[in-house]
């Protein structure tokens, strides 16, 4: 899987740049993620990871370069247009529909992908395909018993699980996860890695993550972003051995690297 595919990459950035006034956040970024690949994006705070996510998902428009999804340009499109082309993202700060139930949080994300986008002349309860898919998702997320609980009343770990559920519910082929395990306990994190693996099975994954255990556990390749530039993108073993990465992290990686 690590070998670059000859096919069109699922996600690609070409010379992607972002400046706010005189401040350059991202500089000439070339990144390519093959279909079905899992890439972890690491780098110190302020390296531009979140900006990169915002550029790819359409929250921001880049000041230079292109973003390609399955070979087609998506930069400059609005977030919902990008989502319809098959790319979905989660948020570092949990972003759900607090007053809607778990069931409805997921159902809202599911129904659009099954063709009920702004439907006004059908009852939700009668959309069997939507409801069946939502039930399946709740089972996978371990939220079956919380179906009617408003998202705002869930525990933090369950909210994080629902966050990923809402992200993938629309059936996107390329999934961007922004620090999925942030703020979780060790045992919750272990459970979560399994969950992410299950939910993103067969999908392309780009993930910002600070927990090196998770990164080395999940990723096929690791991209290291430092001060708006891509330092390297390679297999976990190569990245671990890379002296520049060690330097960028000031040795912080050394202690954390636990062979899976």
């Amino acid at each position, binding site marked *: 899987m690590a070998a670059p595919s000859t096919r069109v990459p699922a996600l690609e950035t070409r010379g992607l740049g972002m400046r706010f006034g005189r401040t350059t956040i991202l500089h000439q970024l070339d990144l390519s993620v093959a279909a079905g690949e899992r890439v972890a994006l690491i780098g110190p705070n302020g390296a531009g990871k979140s900006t990169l996510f915002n550029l790819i*998902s359409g*929250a921001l428009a880049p000041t230079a370069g292109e973003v390609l999804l399955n070979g087609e340009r998506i930069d400059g499109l*609005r*977030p*919902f247009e990008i*989502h*319809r082309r098959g790319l*979905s*993202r989660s*948020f570092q700060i949990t*972003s*759900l*529909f*607090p*007053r*809607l*139930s778990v069931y*409805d*949080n997921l*159902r*809202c*994300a599911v*129904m*659009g*992908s099954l063709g*009920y*986008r*702004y*439907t*006004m*002349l*059908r*009852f*939700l*309860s009668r*959309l069997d395909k939507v409801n069946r898919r939502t039930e399946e998702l709740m089972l996978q997320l371990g939220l079956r018993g919380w179906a*009617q609980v*408003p998202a*705002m*009343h869930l525990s933090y770990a369950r909210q994080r699980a629902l966050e990923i559920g*809402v*992200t993938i*519910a*629309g059936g996107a082929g390329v999934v961007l996860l922004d620090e999925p395990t942030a703020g979780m306990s060790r045992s919750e994190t272990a459970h979560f890695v399994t969950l992410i693996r299950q939910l993103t099975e067969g999908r392309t994954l780009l993930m910002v993550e600070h927990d090196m255990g998770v990164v080395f556990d999940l990723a096929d390749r690791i991209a290291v972003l430092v001060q708006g530039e891509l330092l390297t993108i390679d297999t976990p073993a190569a990245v671990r051995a890379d002296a520049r990465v060690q330097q960028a992290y000031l040795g912080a990686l050394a202690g954390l690297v636990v062979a899976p």
Partner: protein
Amino acid sequence: MRGQPGPDPEPPPASLRAWALSALCVVLAPLVLDSGLSMTLLSQMGIAIIACLSYNILLGQGGMLSFGHAVYTGLGAYLAIHALAAINQGIWWLPVSLLPLLGGLAGLVAAAVLGFLATRKSGTVFAMITLGLAELVGALALMFPTVFGGEAGVSANRVSGPAFAGFDLASDLQVYYLIAAYTLVCVAAMYAFTATPLGRLLNAVRDNAQRVAFIGYDPQRVRHLAFVVSGFFAGVAGGLAALVFEFVGPEALGAARSGSYLLFTVLGGTTFFFGPVIGAVLMVLSQVLLSELTRAWLLYLGLAFLFTVLLAPGGLAGVLVHLGRSRRGPWRQRLPVLAALALAGALAGSGAAALLEMLYHRQLDAALGLELRFLGLRLDVGDPTIWAGAAFACAAGMVLLIRLRPTVRGWSDPQAQASGIGAPPGGQR
């Protein structure tokens, strides 16, 4: 618990029995309440119910605080009254009982055009745009007296044209049944709307519009569609009003009317579908009956609104549902406290009301003498002991209420939160 958005109540099972019972009440009501006044009141309530429910599609379900809902009811009313006038003159042929649908069409078109501007934004900006548009339409109405009739308005006669299904609207009873039919159908349709994909998406946009964009929908489009749906029902309400009053004046478009839709919808409760129904009934009762009873009625309304927003943001519906739920639980133990609460409230309320009434009497009706009739009593406004007594009653009630507060606060449990008490009327963003 306050300040935090409450959850959406689980949609109550749309029991056919509840609907059938309501419909039966509506059909049988004229047998009991057969005076001319009650007929008029019931008819106006039906119209207000449609208007307030359509307003709540924006406020409660979409988190859109509109300051210009009267624009859509008003334009619906104007188109209906002009069509009626055309029928009167024999220019047009249309059964009069279908005019409210024409009003709905006017509301729909107006909402599609004006809403396109307003719904591009949410929150404060949305509110400001609706306010601006309302002022604009109000000013335009006065600039074109040939269309809007200027200050004098437009009149027409509803008993004309071909009778449709036996309806010629000659009697109050027929008018009532026409409005009842429209109200039942519109309420059912708006209830059904909440159970559609678009209806649920509207709640999602209210809760978190940004996230909606990242799961593949255009939040602006969701808001716009909801605005158009709301505008249609508002227009139907306007068209019905035109038929009932056979007159439409510029105040039908005015800020005061928009304000009263907002006020009574919040008073009734925005978190429950049926909250605005309670609000609408109160609207008619207070505008017709309370205004007869006291000159200070607007002041009481303002106070009631203030108390609702501060203490029970779920509105009357929220309070009722809360009481209904706690009845199953520790209701019996709470009975004495509730009784004390009611007593304290009555004491404080009547004391304050007496003071207000005496003040009003002295300021505005001094020429009528010093005597004021209040709650069956004759109060001498010139007697300082009466003032002291009223002030004492008010203060004693307040002290009691404050003393009871810790007890009541102890009651708040997750169920109370689920009842929508503590939920702000709008959503964020």
